[in-house]
C-alpha cells in the first residue's frame, strides 16, 4: 500500500513540475508550488514509516512552511505588484512543456545510472527530484516576471529537498530546520525586494533591470 501512496506523491510532484511550465497565471503557479511542497513534506513520512517524532515534526514544519508560509508571502507580494500574469517569456509555454517532458525523460535515464543504496521506492525519488531541480532552474532562467523567478527558486529548493529524501540523507533536526529557515528568510527578503521593485520600475519585468552592464 505504501508503494502506491509513494508513487502517487511522486506523480503529483511531476505533474506540478509540468504544470508550472505551462501556466502563465501566477496565482495558479503559487498554488502549484505550494501543493508540490506539501506533498514533498509528506514524502519522508511515506518512505520511512518508522514514525520517529523527529521525522513527523520535520514533516509538519515543512508542510506548514512550504505549503502555507511561502504561498502567503508570495501572494502578498503578488497582490502588491498587481501583475498576475506572466509577461511574454522568451521560451513559449508549449515549448517549455515539451522541454519539461524531455527533461523528465532525461532524468529518468540518468536516475537509472546512479547506484544508490536504499529501497526500490527511493530509487524512483531520484529522477523526480532531479527533474524538479532542473525545471526549477529553467523557470528561474527563462521567465521574465520577477515573482516567477522566486517561484522557480522555490521549485528548485523543493527538488533539493526531495533529493535529500531520495539519497537517504540523515541529518539532525536542527540542520534540516536551519536549511528550511534559510529558504524562508530568503523568500522573505526577496519579497521585500519585490516590494521595492514595485516602486522603482513600472512592471515587475526582469528585463527592465538592464542599467548595469559591463
Amino acid at each position, binding site marked *: 500500500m505504501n508503494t502506491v501512496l509513494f508513487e502517487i506523491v511522486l506523480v503529483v510532484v511531476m505533474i506540478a513540475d509540468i504544470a508550472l511550465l505551462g501556466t502563465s497565471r501566477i496565482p495558479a503557479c503559487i498554488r502549484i508550488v505550494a501543493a508540490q511542497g506539501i506533498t514533498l513534506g509528506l514524502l519522508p513520512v511515506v518512505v520511512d514509516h518508522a514514525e520517529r517524532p523527529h521525522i513527523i515534526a520535520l514533516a509538519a514544519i515543512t508542510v506548514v512552511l512550504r505549503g502555507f508560509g511561502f504561498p502567503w508571502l508570495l501572494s502578498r507580494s503578488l497582490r502588491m505588484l498587481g501583475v498576475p500574469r506572466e509577461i511574454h517569456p522568451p521560451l513559449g509555454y508549449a515549448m517549455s512543456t515539451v522541454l519539461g517532458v524531455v527533461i523528465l525523460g532525461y532524468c529518468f535515464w540518468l536516475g537509472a545510472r546512479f547506484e544508490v543504496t536504499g529501497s526500490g521506492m527511493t530509487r524512483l525519488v531520484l529522477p523526480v527530484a532531479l527533474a524538479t531541480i532542473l525545471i526549477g532552474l529553467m523557470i528561474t532562467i527563462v521567465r521574465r516576471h520577477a515573482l516567477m523567478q522566486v517561484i522557480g527558486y522555490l521549485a528548485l529548493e523543493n527538488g533539493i529537498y526531495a533529493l535529500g529524501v531520495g539519497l537517504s540523507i540523515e541529518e539532525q533536526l536542527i540542520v534540516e530546520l536551519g536549511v528550511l529557515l534559510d529558504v524562508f528568510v530568503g523568500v522573505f527578503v526577496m519579497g521585500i*525586494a519585490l516590494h521595492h521593485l514595485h516602486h522603482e520600475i513600472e512592471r515587475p519585468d526582469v528585463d527592465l*533591470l538592464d542599467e548595469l552592464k559591463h
Partner: protein
Amino acid sequence: MLTALFIVPLVAGVLALVVPRVVRRVLMPITGLVHVAIMVWAWIVRPPPELDGWIALDPVGQIFLSIASVLFLATSLYAAGYLAEEDPGWRDDIESPLPFINAPEAVFASCFLFFLASMTVVTLAQHFSLMWIAIEATTLATAPLLYFHRHKRSLEATWKYLVLCSVGIALALIGTFFIAVSGQTAGGHHIPLLLSELTRTGVMLEPTWLHTGFVFILVGYGTKMGLVPLHSWLPDAHSEAPSPVSALLSGALLNCACLGIWRTLQVYASAGQVGAARELLVGFGVMSVVVAAVFMVNQRDYKRLLAYSSVEHMGVIALGMGLGGPAAFAALLYAIHHSLVKSALFLLSGNILRVFKTKSAAEVRGALRTSPWTGGLWCAGMFAITGTPPFGLFPAKFAILQHAFAHGYVVIGIVCLLFFAIIFIGLTGTGLAMAQGEPPPALGGATRPQWLLVLPPAFLLTLSLVLGSYLPAPVHEVLTAAGATIEGAR
C-alpha cells in the same frame, strides 16, 4: 568561548534595531573590538572544539576569521564616520534624474552585525551543512545592505545578487548531499558530514559521488566567490553597495565562499583524489584572470574597476589552490593581503565618491590636491593591489607563478603573466590618473581629512605593507599548517 565569537555580533545586531542612533554608531566598532579581542585571544590560547565538534578553530578557518575580524573593526569605524556624513531624507541621485533616499540606519547596522555573525560561523563551522546554512545566511544578511542607497541601480544589483547567489548556493547544497552519499558505505554506515570525520575516513569515500559533489560545490560556492563565468552579480553588487559594505564584501565574504571550496578540497585530499579537482580549479582561476582583465581595460566606473579586480584576485587564489603545495600557502597569504588592500581601496573610493560626486573615473582628477590623504593612500593602494613590492601581494603572487612554472604549467604561467601586465596597466593607468592633475574648479581646495574616514584605510594598507616585509612566526606556522591540509597525491 568560540561561540561567543558569533553570539556577540548576533546579540549586537538585534540590539542595533532598538537603540538610539548615537549608541548604534558606536555599537558597531565596539562589537568589532570585542570580536578582535576574542580573535587575538584565540591565537594565543588554542581553544578546543565546541558544540560536539561542530565548531572548531582550524588553521584555515583561523586565517579567514582573523581577516574578517580585523576588516570588520576597520570598516565599522569607517561606517560610523560614513553614516555621520550621509544626508538623511531625499537627495539627488548622481546618475539619474530621480531622487533617492537611504534605508533606515537601524537596518544597516543590524544587517552589518548579522553579516559579521554569519561570516564568523562560516569560518568556525566544521560540519558541511552548518557551513552551508551560514553561507546562505551571509547572502541574506548582505542583501539589505546592498540596497542601502535606494535607487534603481542598487535594486537591480540586489535582485541579481539575491537570485544568482541563492541559486548558486542551492547547487552547493546538492554538492553537500552528494558528499554525504559518498560517505554512505556499503555496510549502511553513515559517515557524518564533519570535516574531521570525513578527512579521517577519506579513503572509504566513494570516488564518483565525491567528485560529483565537488563539482557541484565548486560551481555553487564558486558563484559566491566570483569565479568566471558565475561572477556576473559581482561587479554590480560590489559597486552599488555603500563603501564600507563593498569593503567587507570584497575583503571577507569572497574568502568565506573560498573557504567552502577549501574544505571540500581537504576531504578530497584525504581521499587521495586531488588531481581532478586541481585541473578544475586551475581552469576556473585562469578564466577569471583573463575575463576580469578584459573587463578592466576600458572600465569607466572606478568602483566596478575594483570589483573586477576582486574577480581577478579570486581567480589567482583559485589558481593557487589548484596548484597545491607551496602555491596553496601562497594563495592564503594572497588572500590576506588582497583583503587588506581591497578593503582599503573600497573605503577610499567612498571618500572619493563623496568629494567628487561622480562614479566615472574619467571625471575624477586631482584627488591628491583635494584630499591629500585619500589621494595618497589611493595611489599606494593601486600599486599594492597590482602586486608591486614591498606590499604583501608581491611575494604571494610570485610564489604562485613560480610554482606554476616549476611544475610544468608553463602556458598557464605565461598567460597569467601577460594578463597581470594588462591589469597593471589598466588599474594604475586609471587609478593614478584619478589622483593626479588639477581638480575640477567646482570643488574647493584641500579639505581637512575626516579621521574616521581616513585612518581605517591607512591602517589596513600599513598592515599589508608590514606583513609583506615581515611575517610573524605564529602566522607563518598557521599558514603552513593550513596549506598542508589540501596536500594529497598529485
